[in-house]
Every structure is written in C-alpha cells, then in structure tokens.
C-alpha cells in the first residue's frame, strides 16, 4: 500500500469522524471542531490524490489547500464570534436537544 492510498483512507476516516461529531455534538464549539476536521480531511484528500509531476508535487492542489486553510480559519473565527454572541444572549452555547431538557440546566 503506498503513501497516497494510506492518506486517502485516513481522509475517509477523518471525514466520517467529522460528520459524526457534527451530528452528535451539542456544543457549538465542538461542532466547529467537527467542521474543521471535515475540512482537513478534504484538504488531505486533495493533496494525496494529486499525481506527482516529474518527481515534484503538483503545486495547484497545494495552493488551493493553502487558500482553503485561510478560508477555514476565517469561517471559524466568524463562527466563534456568533457562538459567543449567542451565549451572551441566551446564556448557553449549546443547541438545546428535544426530549432532553436537563441539557438546558
């Protein structure tokens, strides 16, 4: 098994972990972790699947991923600002879950 295949499989697992976390976590910051992990999985996929060009790595996916990393941090920063504001307004940064009122305290 070569390095690219290993990293593709890792990206698949990471993406699954991210999707699972996005669904089950109640706290908004954990949802942000999950979204970032899904993003990282796709970044790994993009770079790992790019074919090397005469021994060098293809610079285009790398540049795209570099752009993606900066966009991810921008989106995360905005998400965190929204979360803090929500906590200020409601006193809670978790999404309330139906049938489980104790989550709201």
């Amino acid at each position, binding site marked *: 098994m070569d*390095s690219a295949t290993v990293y593709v499989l890792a990206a698949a697992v990471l993406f699954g972990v991210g999707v699972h976390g996005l669904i*089950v976590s109640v706290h908004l910051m954990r949802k942000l972790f999950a979204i*970032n992990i899904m993003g990282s999985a796709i970044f790994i996929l993009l770079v790992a699947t790019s074919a090397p060009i005469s021994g060098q790595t293809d610079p*285009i996916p790398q540049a795209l991923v570099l752009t993606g*990393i900066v966009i991810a941090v921008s989106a995360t920063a905005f998400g965190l600002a929204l979360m803090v504001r929500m906590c200020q307004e409601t*006193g809670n940064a978790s999404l309330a879950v139906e049938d489980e009122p104790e989550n709201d305290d």
Partner: protein
Amino acid sequence: MTGLALDLLIIASLIGLAIQAINGASLFRGIIHFVVLGLAMSLAWARLDAPDLAMAEAAIGAGVTGALMMIAYRRLIEIRPDHDNATRTPRSRLALPIALASGVLVGVIGLAAIQAEPLPGQAGIAVLETLESTGLGNPVTGVLLLFRGFDTLLEITVLLAALLSAQAVTRQDDLDRSLTTEDPDTPLIGALLAIVVPLTVLISVHLLKAGSQETGGAFQAGAVLAACGVLLALTGRLASSRDYSPLLNGGLLVGLVSFILIGLAPLLYGQPLMALPGVWAVYFIESAMMISIALTLVLLFAGAASLKRRSRG
C-alpha cells in the same frame, strides 16, 4: 517501510486526536486536542511533500485557530463559569450510518482519483514549465499570485469579510474590555517581549522574503506576525479600542487595495487583467497582504473594532 510506519503513526494520531477533540470529556481539553491535531496535520503535510502547507497549518491551522478558540472559550467561561459541564452528547441512531456513508463516499472518490490517469494538459505541468521564466522559485507562490491570482484576491476578501461579520455580531459594550487580567507590568514580561517580539518580526519577514524562492509566503508570515500581536494583546501592550484609527484601517485594507490596483494596472498597457508586471509586484503585494492578514487576525482575536497602545504606569 519506515516511511509507511511513520505515515501510519501520524494517521493514527490524527484520527485519535479528532475523536478526542469532538468527544472528549471537557471542552477545554477538546481545544487542546484540536490544536495538537493541527500540529499532527502539519506533520502529515510534511510527509505529503507539501512544506508550504505544513508551515501554514502549523501557523494558521494550529496556532491562530487555537488562539481564537481559547479566547472564545474564555469569554464563554466569563459568561457562565460552569460552562464545561453542559457537554453531554445525546444519542442519535442515524449519526453512525450517515458518518459511515460519508466516510466511504470520500474514500471511494479518493481511491478513484488515485487510479485515474492524469490528464495530458494538467495545469500543474504548465506551472512548473513556465515558472522559471517568471523569476519565482516557489511554484506554490507562483500559483497563488501569478497563475491563480483571483483565488488569492478573493481569499483576502473573505478574510476581511469574516472580520467585518465578526465585528458586526460582537456586542459593542464588550469592546472596551481588556484581554488580560494579570498585572502586565512585571519585569519578566518586559524581558520576554524584548526578545520574542523582534524575533517574531524577523521570522515573519524572512518567511515573506523566502516565499518567492522556497517555502514560505504572505500567509505564513502574516500568521507569525499575528502571533506577535496576540502576545502584545495578552500582555497588555495593546488594548481593544473603539476609536477610529486611520493607520489601522489602512493596514487592514492595504493588501486588498494594492492587489486590486496592481492587478488592474496591466489593462492600461493592453495586457490581460491580473498579469502581474514582475517579481517586484509579487513582493509588493505579498508584503501588503502580510500586514493586512496579521492585523485582521489580531483584530479577530481581540474581538475589537480597533486597537490602541496602552499607556503604561
């Protein structure tokens, strides 16, 4: 064989850290796991022969994102000190099947992409062939500024939009609050800053200059410079402010504006849009972007409209 073992080790830690970050007992530990995950990601980039990404991930993915998450966590704790306890996860029957299906989907796409024959007219080949004539040595910087300049232009626009949106949702009455609670005037902090600040500035300028020929670039340099600003904010040298500062706003805009102006200029000479006139233009735009990126990230961290130097004593 050693390489494969190393890959498997990195991947195991990536997956383990991801699971811990999402499902770990306390939110604060989740943040720590997430930051370490960023560092493991940067090892993965190094293994995938992408040193530019390794550096960007360490500085932006792990460093800046971690700082942003920790300051947000601190604000949550200030609002509600028992915050960490409210993190019980509910049961969901559909979560596991959906996660499995999406993981398999990504895996199938990736394996199919590896099997596929590369197209003869692959853009990367054109980049590597024409790079020498441009005077740049780092193909990633070449793609970012010369070949796909629009991406980078839109990217710093997104960064600016994120800052404006974050400021729009941040409560105005919180802006005056200081970021530091400890007494910031101990001699140790002064000595620390006297060493770390010049060193950080030196490293970021080096990254910027190196970016045209080898690993580095405006984004990595901007993130390192932003770390310097975060340090100054945490040690009380910079304070949040509400006052309009022309210098600061100019710094926020200089990257975007200079990129647009230099990108438009070729139209005057009948050249295509964004055809940068030479390596000097790359250096100029990257320097301007470094300043804008650093200021934007520091303001996002401070959650403030503006910053002022705090008078001491």
